């Protein structure tokens, strides 16, 4: 099954790839988009059109000032989202999904498990679910509060930002092996409802294709 994947950075794209292979063996990634980052939200309508041809799986983070429905209204301009377009605008960043697998994350990066916040139980009228909660941006929290506690010097050197950089010098390099080889999606799903819903959306596309 041919799909395009869209992610802001390498980590996001690796996460999509892991999620796809978790859901099915049949995915074939046609291309990893965009060619340049930063413009994803402005191009949402184009990705929507593109998904008419082949499914598009998109993962983007929200800036602090935005909220998902506002973005969708602003950039979809009244158009209807195609069923083949999996648009995942993460309330918190995708890093939260990685840390949702608390045990493996702590084990791999050699940090105390207690440094990773425990998932919070949320209750709504219809249901209750667990979601990771971070006092501030999950990726920042990770490199400021969690990784500095690592027993492995290399991770600290790779991931902790110097001066005003937003990420560590080898942030993607340090994150990728965990995403690819150590991240237990089932475990993470139990702690993060947003990840659980993302998986379900991908599975839905798979079943649509299987029934075709």
């Amino acid at each position, binding site marked *: 099954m*041919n799909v*395009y994947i869209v992610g802001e950075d*390498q980590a996001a794209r*690796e996460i999509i790839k892991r999620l796809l292979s978790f859901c099915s063996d049949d995915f074939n990634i*046609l*291309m*990893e*988009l*965009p*060619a*340049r980052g930063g413009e994803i939200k402005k*191009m949402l*309508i*184009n*990705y929507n*059109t*593109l998904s008419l*041809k*082949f499914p598009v799986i998109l993962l983007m983070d929200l800036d602090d000032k935005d909220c998902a429905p506002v973005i969708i209204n602003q950039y979809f301009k009244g158009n209807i989202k195609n069923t083949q377009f999996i648009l995942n605008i993460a309330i918190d960043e995708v890093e939260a999904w990685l840390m949702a697998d608390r045990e493996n994350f702590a084990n791999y990066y050699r940090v105390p498990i207690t440094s990773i916040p425990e998932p919070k139980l949320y209750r709504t009228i219809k249901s209750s679910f667990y979601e990771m909660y971070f006092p501030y941006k999950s990726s920042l929290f990770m490199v400021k509060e969690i990784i500095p506690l690592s027993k492995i010097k290399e991770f600290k050197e790779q991931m902790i930002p110097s001066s005003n950089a937003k990420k560590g010098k*080898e942030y*993607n*390099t340090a994150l*990728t*092996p965990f995403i690819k080889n150590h991240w237990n999606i089932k475990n993470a799903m139990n702690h993060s409802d947003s990840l659980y819903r993302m998986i379900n959306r991908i599975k839905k596309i798979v079943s649509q294709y299987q029934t075709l």
Partner: protein
Amino acid sequence: MIISRLKLYNWKNFQNVDINLTERNFIIGSNASGKSNLFDSLRFLRDISKQAGGLQSAVEIRGGIKKIRCLAARKRSDILVEIDLSDEKSDELLWTYSLNFMHTGGGVIKSEAKILSEKVYDGKEKKWITDRNENSKEEDTETLKYTHLEQVTANKKFREIQLFFQNLEYLNVVPQLVRESSSYNSTKIYEDYFGRNFLERISLINEKTRNAYFRRINSVLKLAVPQLEELQFHKDKMGVPHLEAKYIHWRAKGSKQSEDQFSDGTIRLIGFLWALIDSNGTILLEEPEINLHSEIVKQFPEFISKIQRSKKSVKQVLISTHSYDLLNNKGIGTNEVLVLENSAEGTNVKTINEIEQIKAIIDSGFSIADATIPFTAPKEIHEVNQLNLNFSEQ
């Protein structure tokens, strides 16, 4: 007249390609996909056509047939280069030139190229006017060493093709070589691949024309490199040609700089502009974006089109590029882009309309850059940061 079609068989990494070209063409592909080799097939015809050129020398410059022949070739060991020349406005086919040759000799016998067939089709007369092949009675081992294209008596009826290729311009200025004055004249006998003789080429043009060229270049430089003014040409006491410009700084008059002090980007830009201004036919530009600021590169597609429109002699431009900024121009048509794609059977050349996953992206409103850069990127390139390079072992 432009090259409207290029057909290659066994040429370097192209085992079998047949492509259509237009007035402006963007050639894209990953590293080592063969962009330069594609250009080289046209430069090969130029090397045959130029004065003191010819087939044997064109083959020799390239290190012999073995270096030209496609490594992916299975059965046939012959090479074919065929082009159509058409009128750029009416699309009318004017000429087809086809050259098929192979290696002969080896051991104690001199290695040479042997012509298997050479054919010329006259589009106006609508017939083949030359059709030589190795079985013709008139041919022998000696005549089959020389193309009719390179011989002025034999190409009388199709001299236009020879002149066309003599005028083919290829410029890939390497700033380091332009600066290196000790290498001056050292490559005179061969084609000037990397602009070593760039300054000498400038010196060969008559002064009035040269001044007019420099006026145009200066007007562009003023915008692109504002701290440089009054680019000029002069020869030193030894007769070696130089470029000179005024470098503006806090002193009221600034100070003079010559090309050995120019930045890489400045030299590349001057070379690029010179090629466009001096061109008289088809021009091949190899990665013009190198060393240049992205905002300058962004202007290239429109700038080239503008020059083509206003200077009628720049009939055709072929540009190889990796640049997102260059390809992000919305005015680039899908028929102007050729995508080189590696395969086990050599490199394929496809148009955007032939690659479904690229076409779908462009049809959805994205630019050529958005669709093609991810396609031509090496699939596993991100893995480079996961490599264990074992520096501690040394």
